[in-house]
């Protein structure tokens, strides 16, 4: 083995999957990146190269089919994590309700267009207005992080009756996630495998913007965004997520403590780039994930005439 290859020997842990609950794999570790001029920080491991083959194939259930919806849902029925509010008879269609989700769950449902309903995290919203009189299918998805650092997606499928405001839980699914990369401030990005595609799962503690592999931009208000990456031979795809995250407050100078206590928590723009590519010589898609600060570092001084040169100029 050449020195180069030895230095890059991947670390993989194999594990078996079972059903819809997938045991989390520990992916190759390694923090990468800072955008600071003058140095690259983080561990000297390769830029994060998740291995699709090492990740268990995950199944995310299809959204509920409204054709199988119950005729109604009892007025008193509730689903933990969802809330309904609204007014009667305001629109011509009849009732409308505002459905909202706790813990910044990403909400979608049959009340949206089919294309929008597949992935609740794209332009993810935490509340929606439902204007219809028939029972709607709702999906709420959130990122769950446990104390052991393991991550999963909790996918809640429920029926919501706009007339009775009743809600009925149809299915609760937990999908284990693989840790893909750790960036500045311990910002972690996760993923899951669905067939031959990697789905990147990026926490979005505040509103973030995302560019999907088709070049469509999304603005996300819920707690995470999930983006698919797939590459056939000779192709590549990349996604970008950017937005502010809170950073550690630096020690305030004397006299500044009061001001800083009153101020909002400092944030900094972070950027996640992920891609899948496959050339004719790649046996499988090559994945890469990079996390770095998006904002510029202090500018370097411009090439200017030195004081000596200016002095020479004045002597002539």
């Amino acid at each position, binding site marked *: 083995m050449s020195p180069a290859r030895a*230095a890059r020997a991947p670390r993989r842990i194999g594990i078996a999957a079972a059903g819809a609950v997938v045991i989390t794999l520990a992916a190759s570790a390694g923090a990468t990146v800072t955008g600071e*001029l003058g140095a690259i920080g983080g561990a000297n491991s390769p830029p994060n190269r998740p291995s699709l083959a090492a990740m268990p194939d995950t199944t995310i259930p299809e959204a509920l089919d409204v054709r199988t919806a119950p005729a109604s849902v009892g007025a008193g029925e509730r689903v933990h994590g969802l809330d309904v509010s609204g007014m009667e008879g305001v629109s011509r269609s009849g009732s409308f309700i505002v459905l909202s989700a706790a813990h910044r769950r990403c909400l979608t449902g049959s009340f949206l267009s089919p294309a*929008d309903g597949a992935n609740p995290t794209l332009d993810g919203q935490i509340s929606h207005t439902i204007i219809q009189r028939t029972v709607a299918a709702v999906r709420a998805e959130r990122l769950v992080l446990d104390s052991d650092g393991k991550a999963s997606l909790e996918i809640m499928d429920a029926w919501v009756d706009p007339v009775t405001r009743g809600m009925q839980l149809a299915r609760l699914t937990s999908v284990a996630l693989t840790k893909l990369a750790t960036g500045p401030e311990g910002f972690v990005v996760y993923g899951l495998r669905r067939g031959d595609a990697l789905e990147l799962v990026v926490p979005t503690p505040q509103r973030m913007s995302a560019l999907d592999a088709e*070049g469509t931009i999304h603005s996300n208000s819920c707690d995470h965004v999930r983006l698919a990456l797939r590459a056939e031979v000779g192709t590549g*795809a990349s996604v970008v997520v950017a937005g502010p995250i809170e950073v550690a407050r630096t020690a305030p100078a004397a006299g500044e403590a009061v001001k800083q206590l009153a101020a909002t928590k400092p944030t900094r723009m972070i950027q996640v780039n992920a891609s899948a*590519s496959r050339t004719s010589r790649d046996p499988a898609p090559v994945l890469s994930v990079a996390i770095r600060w998006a904002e510029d570092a202090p500018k370097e001084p411009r090439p200017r005439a030195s004081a000596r040169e200016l002095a020479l100029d004045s002597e002539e």
Partner: protein
Amino acid sequence: MKSWVPAVMSVAAAAAIGCGGGAVRTGTMPPQEVKAKAVGCARVRPAQGPARIDSVRVGGTVALARIGESTIAYVADEDDAMLHTVDVDTQRELSTTPLLGAPSQLLVAADGRVLVALRDKAAVQVLEPAAALNAPLEPRCTVPTAVEPLALAITPDDATLLVSSGWGQALGAYAMEDMKRSYQVHLPREPRAVVVSDDGKKAFVAHVVGAQMSVVDLAGADHRARTLELTGKDEGGFRRRGVLGSLVGGSSEPRVRRACQGFALAKSVEPEGRVFAPQVLVDPGNAEQASEGYGSGGMMGPEIASVAVIDEGTDAPLESSLTVTPDVRRMAGARTLATECLLPRAAAVDAASGRLLVTCLGIDAVVAYDAASADPRTAELGRWTVGAGPTGIAVDVSRRRAVVWSQFDRAMSLISLAAEAKEPVVRLALSRKASTPETADLALGRKLFHATGDTRISSDGRACASCHPDGRDDSLTWATPDGPRQTPMLAGRLAKTAPFGWNGANEDVRDHVTHTFERLSGSGLEGRELDALIAFVGSMQPPQQRAAKDALVLRGSEVFHSTETGCASCHGDTETYSDRATHDVGSRVAADKSARFDTPSLRFVGGTAPYFHDGRYPTLRSLLVGAEGKMGHTDHLAKADIEALEAYLRSL
């Protein structure tokens, strides 16, 4: 350390153009004439001295070798026509070796010989390490090449040396055993870096202009070269979902961007089979419409840094690496973003970390990208600041460091690629010839010429070198307020050719430069800095032009000067080939404000396609035929005379 010590010093400012964009000689001693021993090109002390490391077979301005546990760096100093030998571990310069000309790249062969491309001598010089490590290298032979050899590579079997020649538009192949030329392939304009596929069957050649890469068949009998187009798709605006998308502006029509600044190439190690081409994707605007400045660039600006990823197996680029997408960071609210690498000059892959390292003029940094990314440009991992004018980089994989040569500062930077290094960058100044006030001005001017992200030059990050790489032209036609304007070559074409600008609106270079800053929405330079920039621009040396006195050229001269053809009526001046007057040659297009155009100089016209103010003629031949009646007459010429006329023009 043994070094070359000048016996006489005088005040002068001679400059020659260099790979980094202009060499600035800091002394006036002429290069020493080194007498080679009559031993041919082979080594006289085989298996002695430093040996190549990591099987690197691609040239650069810095190359590494190993002797025992010590790492040696050979550095090509173009300004001083010198080769520096440096002990990287002790950070000491061991020796300097005077060369026969200005080195553009060097390469350590499998047997330890050092091959140096001499840009201004149309030759490759072959040297051998001396018996003592701190002695200058010993010359063995000089091998003639096509004009302006700029890049070197060796095939995987170590049997063949490939030399790309910029102005000569050629790729030459030489047998390493005896350095005899095996064959030569004609290439499009401005070839630079060369890399060879893992199986040795083809060579990839980058081009500075023309939005292309050449792929040369090394195995076939005819060594055919084909062109790989490198154009980028710019999404223009952006697509949004749903109703909001229809309310937000932005064009839905993709724009085509053309690749420029193709100076460097690098090959992947893992994953295998990828060729990386750092470049810039340019949108010169719609030439049929007047613009506010040079180009329009839509929402993304005229120039965007890029790294094309070429599939070595299929010779096709990954489309994802050429697709320009909206910058999500700006939409997320980022206000200060890192200046992009708009003047890439060298590249290398750190196999241990899977990073692609690119040296960038202007920002004077080494930028690290994820080499596995489908679009490396969007996967920047970080950057290091190095000395001004980084033109070369070599990676010492096992020692976890990169060695960078910065020509403008004449400094070597040692970058630790290890994590959490306490001193990630160590800078080492190398010996140089003494500078003078005049050469100091030129050095400042060179830095300003290559300054990207300097708001005095432009508001969008462009530098002078963005449109004038190596002081030449980008072969693009730009939309301007006056109409479409093809970028002219600068080096060697400014003296005695006033007025300036396609309409001859500027009486001198100073006026034109100031006007250009305005067009680029830069705040402008003043005083000493403006003087330095102008001095540098005026000092840029053109490529070596071999005087061709063959019968074809002589006949072409007769045709050129004939009354019937009429070329000399405007291009008759024997020094500049321009009467320095404006004429209406019937070339005005709808977007042009004026029909009269300043007669351009014909010096070096053979290498500055396309032609006319709007670049309508892609070749000299098409111009000679197409301009009939509007600018001279060629209808009456036989085919042989057309060929002679073209040959004459190419000799100017």
